């Protein structure tokens, strides 16, 4: 079962334009863990994810999936092991129908027709999208697209699921459905998001990235209790951990900041035209 382990050692990535996206990232995620990766915009989350299935090559450092370090030779195996669900489902669903899309991975694995059929049916029923199988992707709602996008990865039977902003753009109900769905998975899960409440609910462990480095790595509850850490990393407690703004007296008001734009004076505007 050691296939489910994800480890990075001193990962560093510098983009061709000189931007240092990752400075030094090391962590080890064990079998069956559900880990949230959070951080401000530009902290390096997306860059990190793209390393995990070998789309980007590290400038230095290494990535170990299962027992083996990721190399050009075992890329195919790694990509089957690490199922990557992208942020925008329109990028992930590129075939004419939902069925074709979910079957895309299994076909590339060279499976038999019957096997493809069962894999697709299983993956679709796993995300409760069996009824959508013959629809073209642009006929789906955003929530349906997200679920089908997850099915396209599930059909390859990955051991590790990597999800980039899974709840982005969903209405509250669709978001609930998706969280419940993800909770039911037994895979090793790595989730990045700005939806901290979802991370709070879904992940027992959280890694905080800040300017390309791991600032903290530990139980989610501890991380979200550390106000100083959250402040430096431009994060905030999940709403579920904040006091109710209406009825709780100990509710911590947001710090008063000067407005970005000077308020208009009471005098009427003077137009110069």
């Amino acid at each position, binding site marked *: 079962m050691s296939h489910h382990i994800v480890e990075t050692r001193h990962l560093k990535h510098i983009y061709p334009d000189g931007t240092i996206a990752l400075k030094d990232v090391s962590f080890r995620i064990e079998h069956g863990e559900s880990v949230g990766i959070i951080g401000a915009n530009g902290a390096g989350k997306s860059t990190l994810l793209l390393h995990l*299935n070998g789309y980007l090559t590290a400038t230095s450092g290494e990535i170990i999936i299962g027992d083996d370090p990721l190399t050009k030779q075992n890329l195919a195996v790694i990509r089957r092991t690490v199922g990557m669900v992208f942020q925008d489902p329109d990028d992930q669903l590129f*075939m004419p129908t939902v069925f074709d899309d979910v079957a895309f991975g299994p076909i590339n694995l060279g499976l038999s027709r019957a096997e493809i059929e069962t894999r697709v049916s299983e993956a679709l029923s796993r995300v409760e999208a069996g009824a959508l199988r013959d629809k073209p992707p642009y006929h789906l709602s955003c929530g349906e697209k997200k679920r089908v996008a997850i099915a396209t990865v599930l059909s390859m039977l990955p051991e590790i699921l990597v999800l980039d902003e899974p709840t982005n753009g969903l209405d509250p109900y669709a978001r609930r459905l998706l969280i419940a769905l993800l909770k039911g998975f037994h895979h090793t899960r790595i989730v990045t998001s700005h939806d901290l409440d979802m991370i709070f609910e879904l992940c027992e462990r959280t890694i905080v990235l800040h300017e390309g480095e791991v600032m903290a790595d530990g139980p989610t509850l501890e991380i979200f209790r550390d106000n100083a850490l959250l402040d430096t990393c431009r994060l905030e407690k999940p709403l579920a951990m904040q006091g109710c703004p209406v009825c709780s007296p100990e509710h911590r008001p947001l710090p008063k900041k000067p407005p970005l734009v000077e308020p208009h004076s009471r005098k009427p505007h003077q137009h110069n035209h």
Partner: protein
Amino acid sequence: MLAIDGSFLDFKQLDLLALRQTAVHRLDPRAKVLTTLCFIVCVVSFDKYQISALLPFLIYPVTLIAVGDLPPGYILRKMLFVLPFALLVGLFNPIFDRQVILQIGPLDIWGGWVSCLSILLRAILTASAAIILVAITGFPAICEALEKLKMPQAFAVQLLFLYRYIFVLTDEGVRTARARQLRTFGRRGLDLRHFSSLVGHLLLRTWERAERIHMAMLARGFSGEVHSTHKQSHFGKPELIFTVCWVALFILLRLYNAPQLLGSLFTGSMQ
């Protein structure tokens, strides 16, 4: 902008029509593609003043609409979208071609008018044939048929992607145009500088999306070939009959001017 938006979104209706199960829907896509191709070649190969011989070709779209259980109003509206372009092509014919080729009483009819009408008629015929083909076959199946007819796979995949992402792209284009419109405060027109920047941004964004799609494909084991999983269809007897009968009819109508023959038959019998 809204009009374009609406008509593009309406293409989804074509997909739904393609899901119907009539006799023509069930035919192998190759038969329909070949027949339509033949139809188009016959229609466009007439000389430029031809009108009467084109009219009998209307039988093909009309029959398919009837047998394929397609809504005629919808197909007609789709065609109206194409007609302005055809009109643009034929617009200058009446100005440049003033040779009188027909006289109805005191009225001189210039060759330009006749050829303009001929262009419009051809546009109606070919556009309706193409729209009907998509409505009774479905775009992915057409691509597959073309591939089976030995078109290189790269083109087929290109077409599929075009069809898949045209909606996403128009969506993006419409949103950008709207954002611009909301900040122009009624100033009409779009000057070249802004237009080029707008289109440039759209291109860059499309490029980025293409990269992300490629990423998503690689993540699922893409190795350069797209396999499809459509039902194995078979080019059998019904397909053969469909193709041969229609093609034979097209060739006959191409070689003999049916309305003229009919007319001479009547006038001949009346003498």
